């Protein structure tokens, strides 16, 4: 594996290895503190995403490496009209590995064709965000102790939410996974996801617009934000944005060991009163993101 562009680039075995390394880092961080000494990570963020960029940078720093890069296109040569391929060729000369976020879908794939150093897709428009999916998998593995035999509720924007589509893709490869897909009718999971992933892999799923209906069956509840930028019509956004608000009352029938996840940032979809519930794992999830990115950097740089 030279690059990580799409979660489908990774086999189950490779994902398991990354999770194992991430867990080892969590246990003995000092063992890894100089693994990337004299190595440089370039974070090329053609659109801003503070938390993902900081997570990558913190990951490299904790491995003893250095970071360089930019956090928006206006401060890069793209503003002068340079192509992705040219930017990557130049930056590859200054760094050992590149994490790239770009508003255009497929830009990291183009970069990987031209790059001499490994490319990590840190999000390309509404398309892929494989390190978020790895973060989700590590969270589930740590919090539940397994990645199979789970009933996973996905709630919110299931139509445009790329994290949801990638998570379904990744989890569909494990045994005995069931999904409860909770969304308003306007934001239901696209047909192609049902046909090409769920039906193809014979995955059991239920579609509902009631958040509480199947709460008692869930092992994982993955909440998502309704993203304003996906709507052409302000009215639709306002009508749907607060469709689901998870609060303590809605959790009354939930399992004691439910794991509540959210890719963050949240707006109103999880009430702050849930933050103190021991089942709320979304802030931990963000922290797991750093560890899995550390494991990924080590793997792509072939450092044992």
């Amino acid at each position, binding site marked *: 594996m030279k690059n990580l562009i799409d979660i489908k680039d990774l086999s189950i075995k490779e994902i398991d290895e990354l999770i194992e390394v991430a867990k080892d880092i969590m246990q003995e961080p000092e063992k890894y503190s100089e693994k990337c000494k004299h190595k440089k990570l370039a974070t090329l963020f053609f659109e801003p995403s503070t938390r993902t960029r900081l997570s990558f940078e913190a990951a490299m720093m904790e491995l003893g490496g250095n970071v360089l890069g930019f956090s928006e296109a206006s401060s890069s040569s793209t503003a002068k009209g340079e192509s992705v391929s040219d930017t990557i060729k130049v930056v590859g000369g200054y760094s050992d590995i590149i994490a790239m976020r770009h508003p255009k879908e497929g830009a990291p794939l183009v970069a990987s064709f031209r790059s001499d150093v490994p490319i990590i897709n840190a999000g*390309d428009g509404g398309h892929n965000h494989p390190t978020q999916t790895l973060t989700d998998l590590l969270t589930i593995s740590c919090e539940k102790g397994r990645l199979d035999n789970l009933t996973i509720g996905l709630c919110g924007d299931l139509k445009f939410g790329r994290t949801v589509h990638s998570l379904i893709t990744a989890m569909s490869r494990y045994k005995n996974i069931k999904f409860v897909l909770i969304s308003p009718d306007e934001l239901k999971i696209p047909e192609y996801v049902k046909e090409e992933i769920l039906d193809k892999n014979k995955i059991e799923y239920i579609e509902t617009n009631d958040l509480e209906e199947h709460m008692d069956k869930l092992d994982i509840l993955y909440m998502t934000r309704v993203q304003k930028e996906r709507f052409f019509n302000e009215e639709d956004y306002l009508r749907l944005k607060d469709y689901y608000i998870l609060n303590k009352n809605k959790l009354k029938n939930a399992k004691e060991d439910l794991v509540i996840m959210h890719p963050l940032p949240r707006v109103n979809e999880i009430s702050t009163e849930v933050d103190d519930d021991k089942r709320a794992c979304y802030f931990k999830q963000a922290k797991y993101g750093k560890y899995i990115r550390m494991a990924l950097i080590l793997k792509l740089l072939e450092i044992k």
Partner: protein
Amino acid sequence: MNIDSIRNGIVIDHIQAKKGLEIFDALKLGELDCSVAIITNARSQKMGRKDIIKIDKNIDLDLDILGYLDPNITINIIKDDKRVKKFHVELPKEIVNIIKCKNPRCITSVEQELKHVFVLTDKEKKIYRCKYCETIKED
């Protein structure tokens, strides 16, 4: 209606009726310096109606374009009045610069020098997706 048979050349047969002109254009057959005949709406036992293209010269055909536009056609190669080869085309696994990705968020919308590549992801349903953004090709 009769069209003279060809001595050396290619007969593209079993084209879906009324699709001959599209194939003629896609293969740029109008730019050749030899005779090319398009027979449209010919009777066919197998298909009811069909189109046929006869090219009075052996040229290199782009089989990817042919396979993409009509995977049911038959190609006959004629040499010295005899058919020396007959074969069918298949849906190509990848098509390059035949169709353009229409997704405004795709990287191909801003980087003009990139090839437009579509990959066959479902043979049965003839689904092609953009290699970069995975958007399904629209008909």
